[in-house]
């Protein structure tokens, strides 16, 4: 019988050729920072997932009384969650949660598996429509409040503006390289390197330890930028494009982690 007790709550986000991100309802924001620091929504998701595991772990070991406790816990959390975001009430089928309790009470293994699967489909339906946008919107911090002091002109600018300046520096260097404007190139490279290193100010707003950010803005990052400066200073301009590309690889490292959530957040905030 145990071989039937395999949990099948894998979310099928695969096999689609179109993915639409919908902005989650405003009422969800009550359960995430900055309005709440208790992450009540995701907390309930974990509680329900744990409850389902609790049911099957105990059925496998023949402890139906404990399985029932987990089933009741699942049902209660499911019901409580259904009331948290009124716009999403339609996703919840309370009767299906109660049915899990009933099947556990009947000690009907196949019935429990069937009931959990049916219930799981209601979770799945909501997740397939909302999980990605919720993750991107609420599980990454906002960059809106982050301000950066520009090391070149000492002005304090918003993070977005700072990234624009940095991108402009990078492209201008390439223009000066093509045009062989080496004096201007030298000045712009100095500014680009100062600004790029200046980005380190922002990491600590969220990341506590140097180890956390070392692969992104650690020693190899410093080395790549210092190498770029040295090449320009020594007028080894043929080597500059490669050094510039190596420096730019550090843009990608952070962008791969942070840019997608930032774009989504920005789009939702418009």
């Amino acid at each position, binding site marked *: 019988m145990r071989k039937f007790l395999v949990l099948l709550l894998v979310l099928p986000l695969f096999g689609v050729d179109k993915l639409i991100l919908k902005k989650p309802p405003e009422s969800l924001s009550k359960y995430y*920072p*900055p*309005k*709440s*620091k208790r992450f009540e929504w995701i907390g309930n998701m974990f509680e329900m997932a744990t409850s389902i595991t609790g049911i099957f772990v105990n059925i496998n070991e023949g402890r139906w009384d404990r399985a029932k406790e987990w089933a009741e816990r699942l049902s209660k959390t499911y019901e409580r969650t259904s009331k948290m975001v009124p716009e999403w009430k339609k996703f919840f089928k309370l009767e299906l949660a109660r049915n899990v309790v009933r099947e556990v009470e009947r000690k009907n293994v196949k019935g429990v598996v069937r009931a959990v699967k049916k219930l799981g489909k209601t979770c799945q339906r909501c997740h397939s429509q909302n999980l990605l946008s919720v993750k991107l919107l609420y599980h990454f*911090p*906002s960059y809106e*409040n982050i301000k950066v*002091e*520009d*090391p*070149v*002109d*000492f002005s304090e600018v918003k993070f977005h503006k700072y990234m624009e300046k940095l991108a402009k520096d990078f492209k201008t260097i390439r223009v000066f390289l093509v045009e062989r404007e080496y004096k201007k190139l030298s000045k712009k490279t100095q500014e680009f390197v*100062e600004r790029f*290193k*200046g980005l*380190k*100010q922002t*990491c*600590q*707003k*969220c990341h*506590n330890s140097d180890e956390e950010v070392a692969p992104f803005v650690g020693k190899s990052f410093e080395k790549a930028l210092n190498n770029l400066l040295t090449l320009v200073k020594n007028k080894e301009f043929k080597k500059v494009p490669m050094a510039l590309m190596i420096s730019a690889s550090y843009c990608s490292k952070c962008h791969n982690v942070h840019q997608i959530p930032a774009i989504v957040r920005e789009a939702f905030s418009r």
Partner: protein
Amino acid sequence: MKLLAFLSLFLLSCSTLERVFVEEDLLKRPPAKRCSECHQKIYREWLKSRHHLAYTSKDFIRTTENYSKLKCLSCHAPHQVEPGKRPALRKVFLKDGVNCAGCHYRGEDLKGFMYGPYKVFSPPHPSKRDKNFTSSLYCSSCHQRTYKEWKEAKVSKSCQSCHMPYLGKDDLIQKFPFDLFHLAKERHSHSFPSLKAKEEDLKITLEGNRLKIVNVGIPHNLPTADHGSPKYYLIVEGKGFIIKRLFTPKLRVLKYKEPLYLEVPSTEELKVSLYRRLSWSKRRELVLSKVLRASPSSVSYQR
């Protein structure tokens, strides 16, 4: 007279007496205001400190996104500071920030003691002496990065010797009759000033075409912070050029006794200005401004 002698004997003889006169709420981590009933002067100093504003400053609320960055909170409202250990977050009187009980009370409610640098007879709250109160290790619980920098500087001066300036001999208590229990003690300020470097703390010279700056007086990095963002701004002006450099704990710092070099074009005269901005302040303050002139007989410059 007999009564007085008896009372004196009584007071001096019995160590358990301290527990008889205990004011129980003092052993339950009271708010700072409660401590001010006796320690009025210390309380007034603390009100001026950043410790007092540690939890309520606008900058902190903004940076933690309305207290949602939980890992930041414990040092801004510590339950119990112990030398070298990161404190837990206090559950009550959070708005007090780094308050009296956070640093001075240790142990369970009602069973603990008030700790400090002196051994004192204090009936309302039994007290114990802890020499760590005068050592930098005490501050390292929260100021970990600065402590590390200070250790690397290998100086004998502690954090307290600068950031808890000596006030002379004074009473710890300003409430009758407890003020009669103690002789005046060596007092150090609880306003914890964020001091500004003096001109002599920074040695600035020109070696060839390199400006050399050495932090010779402050035994930690300039600027220093664990998570805040204090800044120094260096502006070097010469004929036809201006060079600006930003100093932040992550970007560039002036380490103690470690020279920092900046290449500058050849010039007759050089104006060097250094400003600072504290983490929580919008204001830039001038630290020093110097004009360096080229010496005709040497490549180096003199003030």
